[in-house]
């Protein structure tokens, strides 16, 4: 009866907010296609816009016998103190110019574009397309929902279709969303071969040039 009329009803203790995991596993249907597109190429060159991850270096080196260029663009995102977007854009382009010394067969951009405004994302994408070989491919993860980001995702290849996502806390930033149409626009001259919306509110995309 007390429950019916709310008399003396005790408010249930508020459930504590669930802790966000530090690591999750993600199945990928796009990564195998990326690897399949790069593998037949002779002495392929792959640009990784993320940080150096030992497991990924070993995996890509053994599987593809490739030359791997490590861009680590998030280092600039984290260290550029200026709030002016053009300063970050200049730093990113300078880093790309120093890193990319040969035509590219593949690009991995797993957690980069979410931190960039539209103009900077367009400049980076144009650079990548310019340096991609015909038939070269881009494998990227992009946010599918706008909001604030307070953690960086480090992707670790466990096997050709499984990635471990390891999260690191970062200062909160505003995140924009690039739809599949936006990506097709900023990556002008390429074709979106695959676009998968994941449960984690991220979009996994494979883009091909030519």
């Amino acid at each position: 009866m007390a429950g019916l009329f709310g008399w003396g009803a005790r408010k249930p203790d508020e459930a504590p907010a669930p802790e966000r995991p530090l690591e999750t596993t993600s199945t990928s249907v796009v990564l195998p296609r990326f690897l399949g597109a790069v593998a037949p190429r002779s002495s392929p060159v792959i640009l990784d816009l993320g940080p150096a991850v030992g497991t990924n270096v070993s995996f890509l080196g053994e599987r593809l016998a490739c030359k791997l260029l490590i861009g680590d663009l998030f280092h600039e995102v984290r260290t550029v103190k200026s709030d002016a977007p053009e300063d970050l854009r200049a730093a990113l382009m300078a880093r790309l110019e120093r890193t990319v010394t040969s035509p590219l067969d593949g690009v991995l951009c797993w957690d980069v574009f979410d931190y960039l405004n539209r103009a900077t994302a367009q400049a980076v994408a144009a650079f990548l397309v310019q340096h991609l070989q015909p038939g070269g491919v881009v494998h990227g993860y992009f946010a599918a929902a706008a909001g604030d980001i307070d953690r960086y995702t480090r992707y670790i290849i466990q096997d050709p279709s499984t990635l471990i996502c390891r999260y690191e806390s970062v200062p909160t930033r505003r995140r924009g969303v690039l739809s599949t149409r936006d990506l097709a626009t900023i990556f002008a001259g390429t074709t979106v071969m695959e676009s998968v919306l994941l449960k984690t509110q991220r979009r996994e995309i494979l883009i091909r040039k030519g």
Partner: protein
Amino acid sequence: MWKREEAPRPPQPVVPPPAPPPVVQQSTTPRVETAQPVQPVQQEKANVNIGKSVIIKGELSGSEDLTIEGQVEGKIELRQNVLTIGPNAKIKAQVLARAVVVEGSVQGNIATSEKIEIRDKGSVEGDLSSPRVAIADGAHFRGSIDMQQAKGGEKHEAKPAAAASTPTPAPAPAQPTAVPAPVSVAR
């Protein structure tokens, strides 16, 4: 009254006390190590250390394993040996060795015939060329990693069948250690 007469016990043999350990008299004459042993026995590999306060500018080469804790600017060449860059070392040089272990800071390209290992406190900015590259969690690296040339472009799935039937070559006999070339040290 009920005590039985016990048979006389045989005399216990006298156990002499344990002999003291032999005292080895150490020779006071200094031991002179010869560069060329009489018999070709396997000698322990020597490891040269360059301390924290040492600064070298120029070319550094040798035929021994080397550990650097100081600063080197220029070029380091140890084609047949292992180079260890200690946690306090700061290297701005091109490095050529059989294997390299990085625990400190390197700005420059590294090329090895066996392996490059960057440990968790290590930092490298430059290009790596080696059949095997290992980067620990927490290590910093920016540049390129080339594992193509040393592998001859072989990929994981395309291992040649002949490799399985190739007999293992007999190990080469041990060679006497050569006298290392002198290294100029600038302080």
